[in-house]
């Protein structure tokens, strides 16, 4: 059973949870996090991995409903049920990378930037993060990225050059993903997006999160959550 080492609010409604005795995972994967034995809240919540090192996981989550509100109240030392990690994760495409995050969508991109850097120390990694109000976790990105541009209250994709020879990665709210997809469609850029859906099981059994793709129906939890943006054009 994983144990919470630290669980603190780092910005308004945004929490960082540090877990020990947790499984290891890759960027873009998620865990189902649950309060052990609880029947209410009933289901686990899919939370992406902000960082993973050995048997320690760091999560960044936003309090949105009853589940995440319950997480926010967990003290250091409390046990946490961690299932997974599940999902396909981001492909680590060789060469330069452009990483675009909106709000709490930044969470999985931090581990992505770290893993991109580890896989190819000399590549250029450019990060663009958009926030509606307060920015957070910026310093953590600066540790691995060549540049981190922060946009507050604007349209983060407006400041991204989609004509570079690089792989593009995006995670954030639907309007941001649509804008990134439109721009990438115009330049022919290679873009991977991480989708978010309500999930019950996280493993592909309940079919609560399936989406229509160019290759038939797929489960966001198991076949995703990362897709080539062209494959999920109907979903965003």
């Amino acid at each position, binding site marked *: 059973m994983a144990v919470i080492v630290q669980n603190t609010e780092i910005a308004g409604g945004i929490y960082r949870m540090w877990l020990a005795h947790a499984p290891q995972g890759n960027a873009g994967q998620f865990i189902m996090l649950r309060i052990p034995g609880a029947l209410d809240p*009933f289901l686990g919540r899919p939370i992406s991995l902000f960082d993973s090192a050995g048997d320690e996981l760091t999560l960044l989550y936003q309090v949105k409903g009853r589940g995440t509100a319950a997480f926010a109240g967990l003290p250091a030392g409390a046990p946490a049920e961690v299932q997974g990690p599940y999902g396909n994760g981001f492909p680590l495409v060789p060469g330069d990378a452009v990483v675009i995050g909106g709000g709490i969508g930044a969470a999985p991109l931090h581990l992505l930037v770290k893993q991109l850097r580890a896989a190819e120390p000399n590549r250029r990694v450019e990060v663009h993060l958009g926030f509606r109000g307060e920015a957070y976790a910026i310093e953590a990105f600066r540790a691995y990225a060549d540049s981190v541009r922060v946009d507050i209250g604007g349209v983060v994709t407006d400041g991204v050059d989609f004509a570079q020879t690089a792989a593009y990665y995006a995670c954030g709210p639907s309007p941001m993903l649509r804008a990134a997809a439109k721009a990438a469609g115009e330049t022919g850029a290679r873009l991977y997006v991480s989708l978010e859906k309500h999930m019950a099981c996280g493993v592909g059994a309940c079919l609560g999160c399936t989406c229509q793709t160019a290759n038939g129906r797929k489960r966001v939890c198991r076949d995703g959550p990362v897709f080539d943006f062209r494959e999920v054009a109907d979903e965003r």
Partner: protein
Amino acid sequence: MNDKPLETELLGVTLKNPVIAASGTFGFGREYAELFDVSRLGGICGKGLTLDGSAGNRGVRVTETPAGMLNSIGLENPGVARFVAEEAPFMRSLGCAVIANLGGHSVSDYIEGARLLNDADIDILELNISCPNVRAGSMAFGLSPGSAADVTRRVKEVARHPLMVKLTPNAPDPVEVALACEQAGADALSLVNTFLGMAIDVDKKRPVFDNVYAGLSGPAVMPLALRIVHQAAKRVKIPVVGMGGISCARDALCFLMAGARAVQVGSMNFANPRAMLDIIDGLARYCEENHLENIREIRGIV
């Protein structure tokens, strides 16, 4: 002491234990087989099938409720033919009882689906006349004794496998429907499917689900389900498989004491994939502590 205290006979099939994965919560076993030893289960009910398959419902499909969840999946499934060719053989390889769940939009759909399933290597056919999430058919057949009996009789005429009819708690009188299905030739009954519920997105001022209403399940419905299973089990002579919000061994014991021969576990699989193993272990411990030769000794004692 009996070395198989949980062994349970159901329609000529010997279950290792009376714990079965409920339809729609376990796929065809592929995903959970990667996570734990599913051969320890009594059986698996496969995802609900429709004759030609379906992409399911659009929009939000699941949302959590207090101690439960609403779903509006809408029977997304590969169709009966692909089930027979690809999924049934896989389920057979898992080492527990194989139950196919068949839904339908019309009586002729059910009959044709049941005919095709005659070629499948399954142990039991579960007739789903209780899914609340498809616009035409399914639960509509299970709401009245007359229509439930009609589809049961017609399917029984063509089906080669033992027939278990899965009932809805949303009928005005589920016990009357149970009696009608028994008279129409059902070999067993499974109950209850989900309760029709609703969720509203207050910020958007509209229903959460495109289909407006959705099926409620999880621990919140357990006492409601238990009442219906208790009433039905007292009235029918055929085996009853009980379900509805079971989350632990004590819940399973409640259904068995209420008269169920076996139980199905549904939503709890989502919350904790290993829940059924905990329930099986808990039942075994109960038999040992209470010196039961077999779990059947408590069946219907309440």
